């Protein structure tokens, strides 16, 4: 009897494993023509997979999802990522069956509308999915293509114009392209999100025309590690950090969006029936300070935003306020729709790399909150500097080693069923704190190689221009 049960179970296990059909399609598969289209199109739902640059087989995808060991996965072929950028990931400690983080990278030449010029670009993106892996997966497969299509539709003279006195600079067109692409991505995943695909955050780093663009929507973060300093290039979008935006919207459209269930006002503490009629501290969405008011019955409604920092929630439900998906997400118990309060708009920063005095070891780190929940920007930068410092093995290896160290620095070690971090303090004592039990993904992108490539491209362009000028006018070189 026991034997039969066991064999039935083993069969079920075997069958489930075989039943999972993974698709190893690359991330650059064709989509129907999206150019100039704002319409959300129905896209195919793909089975679970890991980033294509990892080159994992079905078997390896299975093993990488081991929630007890949480193996740190790095690309087998480091050259699959542009400039051998470092990457490492590990799965959560059991909160979801699959790793809901995703990442992708793409490089190529952008053919500019109305000219014969092509300009090289490199793009990296990372997504942190929640409540299902589907939306993050779809974003991984489509976002870069959509951004490219937006970029391609910018006329060359506008895109390449970085003149000081230009009314609209090229960078503003690029930022606009990314913003539009993010919006379109959100529309594309609507159907999947409605069917339980969840949602995701998004980070994109684009290298184009000598500039670095860092876009972010949600609580994943990109930081710049430059020499001995480091700073965040994107801002976390949580109910706490976006409290003003979210509550303003609730304030302005309270009947329509809050359905009499929530209050957009913020109170110092939770009030009850017995407090009605007494003076309490509160603030309205546009306020940064505090004021008094007499508590009324409607003020007893649930707060639109509750909790603080990482634990803050919109309608007690979701802890991130920007990204893709979550269409159809309803507040627990009340059935009020949350999506209107979520935005797909990224905040985009643009930097001129020539102005940064870059050296070989300057990098950016893209990571999901699996890292940032337990590792500060300063700690991450110091772990990375330490790993990149030695001369051997070569930098290509060390970028991935750095990513792996960062993941390890957040994942820690397991003791029984719990994960802990042990850290030596300055006074020699060991500090023990909780490790991250979330999915953790880290990408380390070196900046110097792009700068070199860009300088070379500028030089070639100048030579070609000179060449064409001298051949058409047969005059001496003009500057």
């Amino acid at each position, binding site marked *: 009897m026991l034997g039969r049960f066991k064999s039935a179970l083993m069969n079920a296990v075997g069958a489930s494993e075989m039943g999972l059909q993974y698709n190893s399609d690359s991330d650059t598969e064709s989509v129907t023509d999206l150019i100039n289209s704002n319409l959300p199109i129905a896209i195919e739902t793909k089975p679970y997979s890991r980033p294509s640059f990892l080159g994992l087989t079905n078997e390896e995808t299975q093993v990488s999802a081991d929630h*007890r060991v949480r193996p740190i996965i790095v690309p087998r072929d480091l050259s699959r990522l542009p400039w051998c950028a470092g990457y490492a990931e590990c799965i959560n400690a059991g909160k979801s069956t699959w790793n809901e983080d995703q990442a992708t990278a793409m490089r190529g030449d952008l053919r500019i509308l109305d000219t014969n010029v092509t300009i090289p670009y490199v793009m990296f993106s990372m997504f942190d999915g929640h409540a299902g892996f589907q939306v993050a997966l779809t974003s991984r497969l489509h976002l870069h293509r959509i951004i490219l299509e937006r970029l391609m539709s910018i006329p060359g003279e506008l895109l390449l114009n970085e003149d000081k006195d230009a009314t609209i600079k090229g960078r503003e067109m690029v930022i606009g392209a990314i913003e539009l692409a993010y919006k379109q991505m959100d529309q594309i995943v609507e159907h999947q999100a409605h069917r*339980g695909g969840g949602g995701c955050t998004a980070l994109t780093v684009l290298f184009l025309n000598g500039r670095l663009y860092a876009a972010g929507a949600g609580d994943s973060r990109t930081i710049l590690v430059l020499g001995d300093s480091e700073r965040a290039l994107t801002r976390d979008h949580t109910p706490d950090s976006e409290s003003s935006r979210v509550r303003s919207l609730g304030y302005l459209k309270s009947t329509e969006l809050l359905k009499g269930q929530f209050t957009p006002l913020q109170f110092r503490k939770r009030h009850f029936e017995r407090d009605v009629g007494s003076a309490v501290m509160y603030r309205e969405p546009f306020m940064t300070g505090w004021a008094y008011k007499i508590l009324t019955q409607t003020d007893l409604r649930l707060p639109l935003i509750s909790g603080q920092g990482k634990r803050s929630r919109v309608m007690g439900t979701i802890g991130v306020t920007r990204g893709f998906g979550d269409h159809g997400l309803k507040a627990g118990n009340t059935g009020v729709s949350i999506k209107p309060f979520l935005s797909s708009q990224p905040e985009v920063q643009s930097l001129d790399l020539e102005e940064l005095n870059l050296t070989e070891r300057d990098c950016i780190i893209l990571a999901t909150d699996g890292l940032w929940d337990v590792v500060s920007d300063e700690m991450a930068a110091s772990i990375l500097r330490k790993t990149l410092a030695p001369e051997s*093995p070569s930098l290509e290896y060390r970028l991935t080693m750095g990513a792996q160290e960062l993941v390890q620095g957040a994942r820690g070690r397991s003791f029984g069923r719990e994960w802990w971090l042990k850290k030596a303090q300055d006074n020699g004592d060991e500090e023990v704190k909780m490790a991250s039990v979330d999915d953790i993904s880290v990408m380390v992108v070196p900046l110097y190689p792009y700068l070199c490539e860009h300088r070379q491209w500028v030089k070639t362009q100048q030579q070609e221009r000179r060449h064409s000028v001298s051949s058409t006018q047969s005059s001496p070189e003009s500057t």
Partner: protein
Amino acid sequence: MSYAYLFKYIIIGDTGVGKSCLLLQFTDKRFQPVHDLTIGVEFGARMITIDGKQIKLQIWDTAGQEAFRSITRSYYRGAAGALLVYDITRRETFNHLTTWLEDARQHSNSNMVIMLIGNKSDLDARREVKREEGEAFAREHGLVFMETSAKTAANVEEAFINTAKEIYEKIQEGVFDINNEVYLNKLFVEKIVCILIEYLLNYFIISKANGIKIGPSHSPSSPGGIAGTGGQGSSQGGGCC
């Protein structure tokens, strides 16, 4: 293909002793003379038959460099067998065996079968560690010993399969508890039970409560269907991030 047992192996030893090459020879029957430095962990799998039973070997190939030691330590968990590899042409890789063994014993199940392997037996002319020394070390520490060549494939099959036989015998003798995760990869069992429960819950409770039709249109065997509906459940439960 279904299998009766799944054994997890871990390959350990200094950098450059040929761990990745042993794995490649065993799973793909080929030799790669120049192999990149292993940074993380790599996986291989092969089905073997012992005593008429299908056994799946899931092999974790680890990075040997000292810098990765703390990460490697976390991979012993659940391993039924370990291949501890040194290079017969480099004395220091033999000298480091004690620290590797300490690591292995400390971080693994005490019943883990450890096979000591002196690799690169094809380079006999450059040998620095005598066969007898390997045998003596194995005897002293209760290990199984074998000299192999990942290049010529000599003894590679035997190394992996003999380890599996040893584990299998332990199971037959009842040394390994039948409910122990070590050999009966409990993870899979737990996972499938969790998925089933989650799926059923979603199907019967949540889908009805919300009037969202989930189920018949999804194949129960597709990960999209399962994890997708599971996700819906957790988002409805509140606190989805």
